[in-house]
């Protein structure tokens, strides 16, 4: 068994588990796929941390380029990031997306072995956070982050500090309220037992004691645990609008008042048990609804895309500044791989901007001096100098984000709130009719008890419970399949959608895998030379091509030169060799395509490696299943793939190319104005506006830890084929909620039958309420599972 394991792992990199290239890096009996992985291994073994590899096979992640961290030396920025600072120690919480297994926990909690200035580090696995306390006089924050980078755990520090917003995903006060409500409910039930079973003569003396105790326990139940219902009811009434909290607040109030009157006037035991039980269950439902997922953050805006700081030039000197402080007229120094944070004019240097965030087109665009570069562009060439013409908050990108259209979207009505209106109306009608009847009969005592009893028994608590229970069960089914929905309300929106809009790049095609083809011809000898050259670069394209070439012989080279992101040159056996972008070719070539990696050997053009995006598998079947929806494709790319899309989609699907982010947004708006409920599927920042505007926006991603735009749901690329099932299950979910509502009404009718006669005894209420609750909760749970199985999702 052990031998098998060994041979299986031998073909993989010891550190990251990637397939090994033909010629591998080898040290201390272990094979590595790249120099980066080997370097991490060396650091770990030098510091006696090789236990890292004990807990999992290949626990590491491939080593990436080091980023610029000068900004972490700025006191102002440090201050914003630190949780706590004292004379000699600081505490910081960092978000590290690479945390994925128990080895990561082990290693990151042993950071003190790598640097003695680190006192301790604690991991929160689900939130992917590490809290580090360190001596800031011995190690600076920048050095700390560099240490983390070196071992392959690069923290993600963005302007909208992900870490700090995550910490309160479940309301802390709510949990405390649940604890109190549970305590009250348990005690009140104990004190109510004698009442249920009847009191014999000599026990009567305790009746008033239990009554008063129950009243005492009802006070915190109504006014501490149930306070949110009152505030919510009052605010909604102020806006002349009834939500589900309004009848709930009324019921809590009536239950409390009736208990208080009965105990004070010693006319009966009151409804303290119903009150505390109701509050406890309601809060439980609320908690279930709030408990969304820790590991993904949805409410992102443009700020999460931008780095926290950028290098500015002040009198020719580089100085990192925080993005909020950028003013018009500032000179920025943007290096290879960095984002332009604000609209700016190119002042110096060669700009090849990757505008894929903005337009969806990943091919770099050449900009000449004096041209405007919009925020969101990524420089792929040498460093450039820019002059800011608009502050960050007014740039093109943020303009798109803060579009006025979004404001209409805030009042999404869910099923509960719609029903609550009619429900409250019906309850009041019944209650007043019963009261009037008994008043005509001159029985004011019965009138009062009928009025309160109707309100108590017609409790919509089932509605307040069945929705969160059903929808969270559906959410967890989705979650297991790689579909992460923001919250329970969003599931209802999903069920209503009738129009689907697809983005092309990254949505219908996959960004992770690419097919590599070569236009031209290379002899075996030349292949080895190209491979020997590419082997020295850690650029992802080089690695892709190297793998595709599959060569097992390498030459040594001299005069190696790499222009990051542009190309490589070197001398091999007196042959000069170049591989890279068209713009850097040493000779002029006319009929070459813009994209791809071009190869020139000894000033002779040999051809280029073409990188084709791969279409996601099963697309045709997916589109067929979705044929009952209106479909549309909006691509920011050129129409070079039109024929492929035409074969996948039916003829009447509208397919548009070269769509700017604003055009995408307008298309969604237009469809919505025609009364359609629109679902948008996209991946990049260029879809961000449309995703946000749509009724249900899905961000497709191949790695859920990558930054995704603000949306209602995140869908893993390989789960795209389940989309029709997801939509169907959400529709079934709404059916379940409606059925459970019907069941609840049936129970209520029994209760109301007693209530209008003024003969609702506390015992009846105490039995009826839990029975109806248990029925509803078990019904929703079982029905959800049944539907999930029917849709083949579990």
């Amino acid at each position: 068994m052990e031998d098998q394991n060994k041979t299986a792992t031998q073909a993989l990199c010891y550190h990251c588990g990637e397939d090994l290239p033909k010629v591998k890096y080898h040290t201390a009996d272990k094979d590595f796929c790249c120099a980066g992985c080997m370097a991490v291994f060396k650091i770990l073994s030098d510091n006696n941390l090789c236990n890292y590899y004990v807990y999992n096979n290949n626990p590491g992640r491939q080593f990436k380029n080091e980023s610029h961290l000068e900004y972490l030396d700025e006191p102002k920025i440090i201050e914003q990031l630190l949780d706590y600072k004292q004379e000699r120690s600081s505490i910081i919480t960092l978000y590290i997306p690479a945390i994925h297994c128990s080895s990561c926990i082990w290693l990151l909690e042993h950071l003190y072995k790598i640097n003695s200035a680190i006192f301790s580090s604690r991991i929160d696995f689900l939130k992917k956070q590490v809290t580090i306390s360190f001596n800031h006089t011995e190690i600076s924050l920048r050095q700390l982050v560099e240490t983390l980078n070196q071992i392959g755990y690069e923290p993600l520090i963005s302007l909208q500090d992900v870490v700090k917003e995550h910490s309160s995903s479940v309301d802390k006060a709510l949990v405390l309220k649940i604890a109190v409500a549970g305590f009250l409910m348990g005690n009140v039930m104990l004190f109510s037992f004698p009442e249920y079973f009847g009191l014999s003569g000599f026990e009567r003396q305790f009746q008033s004691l239990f009554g008063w105790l129950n009243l005492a326990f009802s006070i915190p139940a109504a006014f501490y645990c149930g306070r949110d219902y009152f505030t919510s009811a009052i605010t909604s009434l102020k806006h002349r609008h009834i939500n589900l909290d309004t009848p709930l607040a009324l019921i809590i109030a009536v239950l409390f008042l009736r208990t208080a009157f009965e105990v004070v006037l010693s006319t009966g035991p009151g409804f303290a048990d119903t009150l505390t039980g109701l509050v406890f269950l309601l809060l439980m439902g609320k908690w279930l609804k709030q408990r969304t997922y820790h590991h993904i953050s949805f409410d992102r805006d443009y700020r999460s895309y931008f780095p926290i700081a950028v290098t500015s030039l002040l009198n020719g000197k580089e100085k990192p500044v925080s993005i909020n402080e950028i003013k018009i007229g500032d000179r920025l120094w943007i290096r290879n791989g960095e984002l332009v944070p604000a609209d700016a004019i190119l002042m110096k240097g060669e700009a090849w901007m990757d505008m894929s965030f903005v337009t969806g087109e990943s091919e770099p665009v050449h900009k000449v001096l004096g041209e405007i570069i919009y925020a969101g562009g990524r420089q792929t060439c040498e460093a450039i100098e820019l002059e800011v013409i608009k502050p960050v908050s007014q740039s093109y990108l943020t303009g798109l984000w803060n579009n006025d259209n979004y404001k209409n979207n805030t009042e999404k009505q869910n099923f509960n709130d719609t029903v609550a209106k009619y429900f409250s109306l019906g309850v009041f009608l019944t209650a007043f009719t019963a009261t009037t009847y008994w008043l005509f009969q001159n029985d004011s005592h019965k009138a009062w008890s009928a009025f309160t009893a109707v309100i108590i028994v017609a409790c919509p608590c089932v509605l307040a419970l069945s929705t969160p229970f059903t929808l969270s069960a559906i959410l967890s089914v989705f979650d297991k399949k790689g579909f992460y929905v923001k919250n329970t309300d969003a599931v209802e929106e999903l069920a209503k959608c009738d129009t689907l809009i697809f983005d092309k790049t990254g949505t219908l095609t996959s960004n992770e895998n690419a097919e590599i083809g070569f236009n031209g011809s290379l002899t075996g000898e030349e292949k080895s030379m190209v491979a020997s050259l590419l082997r020295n670069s850690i650029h992802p394209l080089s690695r892709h091509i190297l793998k595709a070439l599959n060569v097992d012989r390498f030459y040594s080279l001299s005069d190696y030169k790499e222009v990051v992101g542009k190309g490589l040159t070197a001398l091999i056996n007196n042959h000069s060799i170049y591989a890279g972008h068209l713009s850097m070719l040493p000779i002029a070539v006319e009929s070459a395509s813009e994209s791809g990696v071009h190869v020139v050997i000894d000033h002779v053009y040999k051809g280029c490696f073409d990188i084709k995006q791969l279409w996601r598998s099963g697309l045709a079947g997916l589109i067929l299943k979705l044929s009952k929806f209106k479909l549309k494709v909006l691509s920011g790319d050129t129409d070079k793939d039109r024929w492929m899309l035409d074969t996948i989609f039916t003829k009447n699907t509208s397919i548009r190319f070269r769509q700017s982010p604003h055009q995408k947004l307008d298309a969604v708006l237009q469809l919505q104005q025609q009364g359609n409920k629109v679902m948008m599927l996209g991946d990049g920042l260029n879809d961000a506006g449309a995703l946000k505007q749509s009724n249900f926006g899905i961000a497709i991603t191949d790695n859920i830890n990558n930054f995704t735009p603000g949306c209602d749901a995140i869908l893993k690329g390989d789960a795209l084929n389940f989309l029709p099932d997801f939509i169907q299950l959400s529709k079934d979910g709404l059916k379940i909620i409606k059925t459970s509502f019907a069941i609840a009404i049936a129970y209520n009718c029994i209760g109301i039958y007693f209530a209008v006669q003024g003969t609702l005894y506390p015992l009846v209420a105490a039995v009826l309420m839990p029975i109806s609750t248990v029925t509803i909760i078990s019904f929703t749970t079982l029905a959800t599972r049944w539907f999930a199985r029917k849709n083949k999702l579990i």
Partner: protein
Amino acid sequence: MSILYFLVGCSVLMALIFLAAFFWAYKTGQNDDVHTPGIRMLFDDEIEAEKSEEDHFSS
């Protein structure tokens, strides 16, 4: 039977103590992360006594 008055008081007091204990545990963050400690306890102690002694002398 008046002992019951005392016993009821005791039971409420006990329940209150438990409630307070829960408040304390929650406020001190013992429920913040319920996943990681479960993994953490599975890590073995490293048995490298000789090495650590060496380190003591050299530093």
